[in-house]
């Protein structure tokens, strides 16, 4: 599964920005956390959403970055089975 593209699409629907840019910001946040976007697992992605993604969203002026990060975490939980299926 392409994690950046998948969660980029979800982020795009939530904040109304371009899907490509959202996939990019997810990719950057994963790299900020010292992880590889191609091989990141669900546990590490959870930490990324709580920390580096939230910071990235704040830095680009997204309102309620905290709420958006929480929404991304809920989507990660909802789609946890995908990580099992793609293992």
């Amino acid at each position: 599964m392409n994690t950046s593209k998948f969660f980029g699409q979800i982020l795009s629907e939530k904040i109304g920005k371009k899907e490509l840019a959202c996939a990019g910001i997810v990719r950057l946040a994963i790299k900020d956390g010292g992880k590889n976007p191609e091989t990141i697992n669900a546990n590490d992605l959870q930490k990324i959403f709580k920390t580096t993604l939230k910071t990235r969203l704040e830095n680009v002026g997204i309102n309620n970055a905290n709420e958006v990060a929480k929404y991304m975490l809920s989507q990660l939980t909802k789609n946890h089975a995908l990580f099992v299926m793609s293992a």
Partner: protein
Amino acid sequence: MPVGFATILKFGIFIIAVVVAILVFIRGKKTELKAISLVGVTFLLIGLNALTAVSVDFDPTIFSSSKTLYNLLALSSVFFYGLFVHYAFYVGRKSPIKVFLLILAICLIVMLIFSISAIVITGSFAPQNQDLSASHINHTFSVLIMVGSNCLISGWRFNASLDSYYEIKDNINVEDWIKLKYKLIMLSSVFLICLAALQIIDYSMIKLLMVMALVFLAFVLETLIWLPPNRLKKWANRNYDVTDESADMSEEEILAQMEED
């Protein structure tokens, strides 16, 4: 006692199940996913169960003790199978796992009491020495528990897969291989439900052939699901676009697009 085809088949299942269990367990450890490791444990228990069945073929006098061990292993595999469904599909979400496990635990205790009392009353492990009515009640109860628990957990797995599949079936960012995997899990669950339901039918050659066919199909499917050959993945993903354009964008480009209204 001569070694028959059924014995060789059961021993073959034991060997393959143990090998698959080890490989799946290693994958579970590498990916840090409990669900995958639990699949490995389930395969191991299925393998041990096949070995227990082999032991009865060689020495029928241990039928009762082996039957108890067989049922315990079968129920344990259902238990871990249930845990797999929970850890694969319900992490951080409401799950009926506690209710399922409680029902299984009660069944396990009652089954143990029945089995031990049948042996204690007759004072023998051998079926020909046991009280027929006690043995019959014990057998009927065991069959009902096995059929019920297998149908319950397999049905739950089918439903969880179906729900998850509907969440992602139109999502172009999810690999076609993953979508196929959900369908294979659903198909395998149907085979396992049919296999469990066959236990209530009296022994016949047709039943034996159907059981063997279903065991084979479910086994092949589960192996393909958890240890897929690369060729199968490539074939399933033949129409999937793997390119991620965001990977070619510079940080400045991404940030500029994010700041656009």
